[in-house]
Every structure is written in C-alpha cells, then in structure tokens.
C-alpha cells in the first residue's frame, strides 16, 4: 500500500511530524514544530444538523490541528429525512436520532447551548449560558424558521393543534399520533408550502406515507393536499406511484385550482382557500419558510429571507469571516436538502482550511440525491451534479434527473432499498 498517496494518512504523518515524533529537529519545516491547535485557528460551527455536523467533521479531517467548536442546543439530533417514515409507522424515532458522541471522538468540541448573540466585528459569540467564545471563522448552519402570519389565523401557537412536523422531534410524534387517532373514514389535510422551502419532495413523500398508513389502518380515510404551488418535485413519478399504490386516496389541489390557503382555524380544523373551506380531522399546516432566526439576527439575510453567499466558498457576501450553509443559504439550483447541506459542509470546510493555510480556494463540485419512499417497497429519486462556474452554482446539464417513469416494480424496490441505505450511509458520514 502506498501510504503517501492517501491524503488522510499523509495528514496523520504530518501530525506526527508536528508532534516531533522521531524526527530530528533540523528536518522540521518551519512553522510545523510549534503548531499547536491555537495557532492553527479556531472555527466555530453553529448548528448541528446535516450542514453543521458535516462541516465540523470535515474541518477536522482536512486539518486536525484546527480547533473546531460545534454549538448545538439539542443533546441529540432528530433528522427530517426519515421522519415521514415514522409518521407512516415504518420507522421508530430511535432510527432517526443521532448523538454527538462520534463528533467528540473526532476531536470536535461540542457545546450544547443556545447562541444568544454574535459580535461579528469583535468576532465573539455569546451563549445563553453566559460563556463567550472567540473565533477566526464562523460557519452558520441554522436551518429554517417559519413565516407565520402569512395567512389569517396562523401563529406559532397553532403548531400544537395543526402540527407542521417540518422540524423533526415532538412535532413528528404529534402528527403521527393525530393520524393514528383519526376516524377510519377521516380526512387528513396537508397545506404544502410555497417555494423555496426545506426538502422539495418532502410533502409528497409524507402524503405517500400517510396514505400507506391509511391503507393499512384507516381503509376509508382520504388525504387532501392543498398546495401553495402549481407543480412540485418528482411530480409525475409521485402521481404515478400514488395511482399504483393508493388508487384515488390522495387528492392534490394546485394553487391555481383553488389550493391557495388564505386562512386557518386550528381549533375547528378548517382551512380556508380561494376555493372554499376544507374541514379535516387532522391538519398538517406546513408554513412558508425563511432562514433560521439566527441568520436574520446576524444580518446575513437579504429580502428573500435567506442568506446570499459566495457560491464557491459559501462565505457570506454580507458579513466578513462568516460562512452560511444548508437550508439557510441561497445555493440555487441546489434544493434545500440534507444531502445538499452535507455537500456544502465539505466544501466550506475545504475552503476554510485552504484560506487559513493561505492557499487558493477550490471551485468544487456539489452533489445532491433526494430519495423518497412512496411505499416501503417503492422508492424514487432525483439527483444532480453541480459545477461552480464563474461564481455561480450550475447543474451539469447532461447529468442528474429523476428515476424513470414506468419502471418495473423491481426497480422501484431497489430504489426503496437504496433510500434506506442512503439514510444509513449519510447519517453515518455526518454523525458517525
């Protein structure tokens, strides 16, 4: 085995050199002999989801001498990917819950606290617990927050009655329990959000999983999707899959066909649309979205409610030494997905390490794959490869696209199998 061809091994070797292991001092290149972690720099990552956890792990991978702190209030992370399977009774919460033990083993200093404020001039972060951290660079990966008050009757308080379940955890269980408790001939209404939002195929995978649950336990129940858009991700494949698996159980109403919600009465479980009132037994109101609140507080957002970033490095175009990745960043045409966020995490880590070393940044490729389960044995996917060309992220035209229409059951079964495998692999990559 040729060890020197392997980047990881080479870095381990460099660490040994830096530590002065078995090396005559005259052989040490200058700067190596006294490179303690403080000298290499301190990177703080805020947010321990797919983006932040990936960034923290790859920062340590690319330069083990960096001091990396990850700030995340939750002791363990529950992923949105997989949460629809929990709602449909096909997975347990334990399957989609991940600890930060491995991050610590990988050398990341994990701090479970909430960021109270960030002084981007003095480059310090104040935590709710009172601690103040300095940084050389900060990576912000705060995910999404909701735009309430966009329709009559909607406010944060209704989430306990009409759960969004668009941040996984308590909300996921609440929606699952409401589905389980609904009458056998009940009606489940989903209000699907307008663009841009986290996980474009997510509402439609959820509809599939709800229909799957109904077909087993609520034979006469129905599902109505009131969409705030006129088209959606993998639409033809979802429509075909719904027909093949669930007949006419799922009714999708586009915005232009009267799906546009203008009000909600959470107590009476009524959604008011331009078409009239829809009354349900369960209402899954998924509000319009914006970057996580911290991004707004730090001055990282523009009028769109999301964060403009340099498309090559993910450096904020508005605040120095701050990088924004994941759902909060504007990285169109990449979808706001866990896979995209993990991809951003690697690229931001590489470019921070290169910048700190005084090297040129790399215009790297981004990759995304979004799998969706229409049924436990019926999966579909959309994939894309992106180049960064002249300062913008561009999809490689020849690549990407969705699963074939009219595929065999065997192919759908294979993709269902890969859906679960993708989940297992990427969560191990990010939290393992």
């Amino acid at each position, binding site marked *: *085995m040729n060890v*020197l061809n392997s980047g990881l091994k080479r870095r381990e070797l460099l660490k040994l050199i830096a530590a002065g292991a078995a090396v005559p001092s005259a052989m040490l290149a200058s700067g190596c002999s006294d490179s303690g972690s403080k000298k290499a720099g301190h990177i703080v990552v805020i947010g321990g989801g797919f983006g932040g956890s990936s960034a923290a792990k790859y920062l340590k991978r690319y*330069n083990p001498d960096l001091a990396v702190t990850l700030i995340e209030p939750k002791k363990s992370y529950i992923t949105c990917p997989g949460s629809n399977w929990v709602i449909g009774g096909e997975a347990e919460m334990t399957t989609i819950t991940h600890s930060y033990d491995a991050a610590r083993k990988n050398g990341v200093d994990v701090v479970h606290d909430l960021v109270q404020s960030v002084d981007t001039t003095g480059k310090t972060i104040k935590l709710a617990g009172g601690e103040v951290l300095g940084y050389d660079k900060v990576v912000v990966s705060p995910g999404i927050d909701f735009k309430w008050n966009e329709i009559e009757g909607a406010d944060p308080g209704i989430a306990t009655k009409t759960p969004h379940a668009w941040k996984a955890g308590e909300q996921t269980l609440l929606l699952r329990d409401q589905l389980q408790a609904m009458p056998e001939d009940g009606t489940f209404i989903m209000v699907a959000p307008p663009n841009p939002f986290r996980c474009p195929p997510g509402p439609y995978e959820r509809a599939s999983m709800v229909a799957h649950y109904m077909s087993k336990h609520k034979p006469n129940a129905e599902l109505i999707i009131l969409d705030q858009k006129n088209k959606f991700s993998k639409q033809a494949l979802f429509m075909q899959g719904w027909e093949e698996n669930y007949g006419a159980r799922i009714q999708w109403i586009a915005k232009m066909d009267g799906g546009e919600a203008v009000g909600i009465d959470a107590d009476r479980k009524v959604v008011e649309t331009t078409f009239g009132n829809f009354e349900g037994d369960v209402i899954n109101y998924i509000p319009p979205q914006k970057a996580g609140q911290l991004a707004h507080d730090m001055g990282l957002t523009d009028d769109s409610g999301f964060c403009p970033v340099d498309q090559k490095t993910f450096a904020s175009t508005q605040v120095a030494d701050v990088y924004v990745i994941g759902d909060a960043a504007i990285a169109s045409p990449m979808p706001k997905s866990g896979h995209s966020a993990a991809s951003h995490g690697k690229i931001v880590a590489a470019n921070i390490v290169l910048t700190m070393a005084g*090297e040129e940044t790399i215009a790297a490729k981004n990759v995304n794959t979004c799998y969706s389960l229409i049924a436990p044995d019926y999966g579909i996917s959309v994939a894309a*490869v*992106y180049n960064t060309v002249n300062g913008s992220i561009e999809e490689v035209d020849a690549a990407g696209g969705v699963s074939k229409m009219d595929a065999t059951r065997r192919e759908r079964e294979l993709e269902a199998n890969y859906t679960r495998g993708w989940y297992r692999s990427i969560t*191990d990559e990010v939290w393992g």
Partner: protein
Amino acid sequence: MSWKAWIATTGVLMASLPVMAEKPVSKGELLANSCFSCHGYDGKTVEGATIPPLADYPASMIVSQMKAYRDGERDGTVMPRHARGYTDEEIELLAQYIGKQGQ
C-alpha cells in the same frame, strides 16, 4: 506496526517532506468525498448500508464502471445520472483517492 515505528524503520520521512508543500485538501479528495454520502465514509461500509462500499474496489474498476455508467454501457438506478456529471480527469482523480491504491 505502529506509525512511529514504521517511520523510524523505513525512513519515510525523507520521502514525505516534499508533500508538505502540497495543498491541505486535494481536488481528488474533495471529489471522492462526494461519494461518501451514499457509499460510506471513506468508502467503507456501515451496518445497515445497502449501497456498495467502494474502498475495496481497485481504482481501475471504479474508473471503468463510472465511464460505463456515464457512456450508457452499464444500466443502473441513480449512478448513470451521477456519472454523466464527471469528466475523464475527475473520474480518474476520485477513483485514485477512494479506490484501493496501486491497482
């Protein structure tokens, strides 16, 4: 053999010094890292994985299969859609990084 012992007995340090001038992250590593999300971190398998790990494949096989997917000679579910996004050079670089060395 431990790394320290290996260094001491092989004198590899002399040979390794020139690599210190290399970039801390190579293009090949960054390209290969994209594969990890589905094919396992460092291309290694994990319990419950269903997508083939790549670390034990020779680099030459990764190159030939990526090109076969890309050029329509091998069918697959998602891989043809990914492979079409890569140039010959990119395929070589990622395969050399992720695959078994020297094969």
